[in-house]
């Protein structure tokens, strides 16, 4: 046979070609290996590491909100949860059905759980129920060993031990929304399902500090994302506790005293500016918001005419009414338009232009001077000052005492209030000219005048502390110890000017004819200096006045007057100031002043800032005597009518 024949030679040649081609093929493979494993190795090593390592966040414990003595206003409570791992459960639906026998699982909730389970990986736990009671939790625990895949554990969630009392102050937390994400700088925490963001109040304002820094676990995961082992762990930093200047007991006392009124109370230290009570009533339960408030509960809050969601202390803007009169008096005196001794005769009304401006007292006060006009809250006296004064002169004084602008208090929703000026009126769209009659309205704290309860408390504080521009704070560590004079600039009024405001307010309580004489603290002589205010919500027309102004009580609630009162004390050692408004409560002297008295007495005794000594100054026997004595006083209990 042709062993060395044609066929063999052909085959040999072609086998060499084929062998060469195959060698080339194998070399190509080696070349590719060089490319992948040597040239680009670093890049692929990085990718492999990214595959392998998953970063998982550990949510930091949210900082607590504490009162000045360390009592908890907001804390973190154990939240008992039940979850099921579908992979381990086997029949997920059957497991849920068994669970629904021991814990409440409405069909709606059941559906949501099933939907969530369909979306997530089978080896990841699906939360079935949150926020269980201890009994429910215990029941689940007792049955869990028989149900594979059922886990019960305790997470941490926000809790407000005194919900209604601190609702506006603490605010609330809630799940992060798309809108929040748009507005806020990125934080990896947002990815955690249990993360809650501060939505309102201190929770909102101090959110960044309360939040803390998330911990990080580097875990090795497989292709399905299942955790294989933990590589490194950093527990992160818990949020900082916020120590507020609030006295929790005083705040709770205040809220209880306000009962179901629609009202706001601010109590502050006149020397340091520390706000010890910031109460807005009615409250609500901020705990409801943590896991998403139910629609009907939310609607009920929105529909309530007493506006429970509003923090009236900083957000509510009200005509200050007669509480504004000490400012007007100081403005006139400083401008040299009148001396304290100069008298004005009050016949019960004043004619100005074509209009008649009424005093709240129909028969008039007769002859009054600067102090007695404040004592009895005579409107005509202040109309007379206003007639001689420019509105800008009043505004200047008001601004110096903290009205018309924000104070940067460390909480959200703070408003400016409004102190009208000629310049301000020019910025309006219509009716841009200032009418002199409007100055008369401003002089009794009506018209365009608006102030927040916080601003009124600041005003009272600055009068009380000798004219120093104390600013309010809610953070204990921000307040400097010592007198206002040591830490704050003077507002720039002469002592004799300030004195008429102080004397006027003292006379209101102590003068014998004062509008709030009955609201003196009986066991604390010379305890309070104050000023009542009753501001109209609706203008009283001439026609109404002709037909007899209807009594406050006979009007619908929304049309009733706002009752206001500002005070400070003790007179000889000014420590605390208060501002209170009771919306549609009626008269300042009848409604607001007694509440303020009780709160201030409580403040003096509790003495959160250590200024008063904290003990009632009269023994029981002396009190009895004073009590009898009290009947001799001719206390005023009228509705003051402001006039707009």
């Amino acid at each position, binding site marked *: *046979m042709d062993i060395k024949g044609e066929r063999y030679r052909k085959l040999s040649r072609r086998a060499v070609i*084929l062998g060469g081609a195959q060698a080339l093929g194998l070399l190509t493979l080696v070349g590719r290996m060089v490319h992948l494993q040597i040239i680009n190795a670093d890049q692929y090593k990085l990718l492999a590491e990214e595959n392998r390592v998953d970063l998982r966040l550990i949510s930091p414990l949210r900082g607590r909100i504490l009162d000045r003595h360390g009592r908890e206003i907001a804390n973190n409570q154990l939240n008992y949860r039940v979850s099921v791992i579908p992979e381990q459960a086997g029949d997920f639906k059957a497991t849920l059905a068994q669970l629904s026998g021991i814990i409440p699982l409405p069909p709606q909730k059941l559906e949501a759980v099933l939907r969530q389970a369909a979306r997530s990986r089978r080896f990841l736990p699906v939360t079935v129920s949150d926020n269980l009671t201890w009994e429910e939790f215990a029941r689940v625990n007792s049955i869990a060993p028989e149900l594979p895949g059922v886990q019960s554990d305790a997470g941490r969630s926000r809790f407000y031990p005194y919900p209604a009392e601190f609702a506006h102050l603490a605010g609330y937390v809630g799940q992060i929304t798309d809108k929040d994400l748009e507005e806020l700088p990125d934080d990896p925490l947002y990815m955690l399902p249990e993360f809650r963001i501060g939505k309102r109040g201190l929770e909102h304002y101090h959110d960044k500090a309360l939040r803390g820094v998330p911990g990080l676990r580097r875990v090795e995961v497989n292709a399905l994302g299942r955790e294989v082992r933990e590589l490194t762990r950093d527990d992160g930093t818990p949020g900082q506790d916020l120590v507020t200047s609030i006295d929790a007991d005083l705040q709770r006392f205040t809220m209880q005293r306000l009962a179901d009124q629609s009202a706001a109370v601010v109590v502050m230290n006149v020397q340091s500016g520390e706000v010890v009570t910031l109460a807005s009533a009615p409250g609500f339960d901020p705990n409801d918001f943590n896991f998403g408030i139910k629609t009907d509960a939310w609607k009920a809050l929105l529909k309530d005419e007493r506006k429970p969601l509003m923090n009236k202390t900083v957000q509510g803007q009200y005509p200050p009414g007669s509480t504004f009169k000490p400012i007007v008096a100081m403005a006139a005196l400083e401008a040299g338009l009148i001396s304290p001794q100069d008298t004005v005769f009050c016949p019960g009304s004043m004619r100005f232009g074509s209009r008649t401006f009424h005093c709240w007292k129909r028969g008039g006060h007769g002859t009054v001077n600067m102090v007695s006009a404040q004592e009895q809250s005579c409107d005509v006296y202040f109309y007379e000052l206003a007639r001689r004064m420019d509105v800008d002169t009043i505004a200047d004084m008001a601004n110096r005492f903290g009205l018309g602008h924000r104070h940067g208090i460390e909480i959200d929703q703070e408003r400016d209030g409004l102190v009208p000026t000629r310049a301000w009126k020019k910025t309006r769209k219509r009716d841009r000219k200032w009418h002199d009659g409007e100055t008369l309205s401003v002089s009794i704290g009506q018209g365009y005048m608006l102030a927040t309860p916080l601003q009124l408390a600041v005003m009272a504080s600055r009068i009380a502390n000798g004219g120093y521009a104390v600013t309010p704070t809610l953070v204990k560590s921000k307040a400097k110890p010592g007198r206002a004079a040591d830490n704050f600039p003077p507002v720039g009024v002469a002592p004799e000017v300030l004195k008429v405001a102080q004397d006027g307010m003292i006379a209101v309580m102590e003068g014998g004819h004062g509008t709030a004489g009955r609201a003196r603290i009986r066991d604390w002589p010379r305890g309070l200096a104050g000023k009542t205010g009753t501001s109209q919500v609706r203008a009283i027309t001439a026609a109404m006045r002709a037909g007899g102004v209807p009594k406050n009580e006979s009007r619908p609630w929304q049309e009733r007057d706002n009752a206001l009162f500002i005070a400070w004390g003790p007179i000889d050692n000014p420590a605390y100031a208060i501002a209170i408004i009771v919306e549609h409560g009626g008269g300042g002297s009848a409604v607001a002043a007694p509440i303020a008295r009780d709160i201030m007495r409580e403040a003096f005794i509790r003495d959160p800032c250590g200024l008063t000594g904290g003990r009632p100054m009269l023994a029981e026997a002396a009190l009895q005597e004073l009590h009898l004595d009290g009947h001799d006083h001719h206390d005023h209990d009228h509705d003051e009518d402001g006039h707009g």
Partner: protein
Amino acid sequence: MADARAARNRYRLLISKVMDLHGSMMIVLLCIAGIGFAMLYSVSSGDFGKLAGRQMIVFAIGFTCMVTIALVHVRWWWKLSYAIYGVGLVMLMAVEIIGDIGGGAQRWLDLGFVRLQPSEIMKIGLVMALARYYHGLTLDEVKNLKTLIKPALLIGLPSVLVLRQPDLGTMLLIAAGGATLLFVAGVPRKVFLVGAVVGVLGAVAGFYQLHDYQRDRVFTFLDPDSDPLGTGYHIQQSKIALGSGGVSGKGFMQGTQSHLDFLPEKQTDFIFTALAEEFGFVGGVTLVTLYAVLIGYGFLIALSARNHFARLMAVGVTTTFFLYVFINIAMVMGLIPVVGVPLPLVSFGGSAMMTLLIGMGLLMNVYVHRNVVLSRQGTVPLGRQGTVL
């Protein structure tokens, strides 16, 4: 007396044949299989019995078959070649029919005691049938295009049947294996040029006949990053595993991509990736070198044989082996689309292991019988037609 002498002669012959078995080739084979066992042990995370142990049993059976096949006289394989091809073809048809009845793609034929993959038999059968066919032709006859009709049918029939299973990878192995055999047999070059053109056109036309998943594979190959979590995911993860292995690898049983399940089919088609991840470039090149040595031996054996049937069969088997190696490794490195071809002697799986060891048996048979002369009619001039040895 005569019987006793004949028996003694047979015994001597057997011993001489056994002594003549290609020792170094067997060592290379054992090395490759050893790498396979180690990798299977690794990817099963140290569970010996799960993959490696089972693979060893299959290898032991296959190795025995290989040696047996090597010792049987080459003339018998010449005789049986068409029959083996025929059996393969019938079984492929059977699979097709059963698949039609059962409603769904099927590659297995369950004979009760063993499950056979007819396409595996066909890989060997086709090489043998073509070798025998061209063994019977002179070079002039080979150059005559009429003689191409039968080989075209021999290649075409099983290709179509396998493609209908559908098993693109095996079909390519069969067709390419057949074509190379035609090439070394001396079929004129222009035929391959025409064939290449027809092949490309056929591929384009065939592309539209492909199943969706096959078509996706082609698209994914063309742009692997387009769909990183879909079909491109596997190739991307495989490249990451390879690349991250670097020069020296992550260490035995330390491959993150394979042990954390990022690697698909890590015990079968993607086992090379697992190797290259754990032993790096060094490990990968070592294995490729071992394959190259084996392939080199294949060509040397082919060229050393004194009969054309044996030469062609040796080239055919060697090329089929090469194609396995090349397609598999090129695929896991993202050089060609994903086709289901295992890595010879390393991937877990009995069928391919048996086929390849049978092929190696035939190659060794050629070596052992390299001096046997076989006429075109299959007669052996020096007698002993009647004995198997």
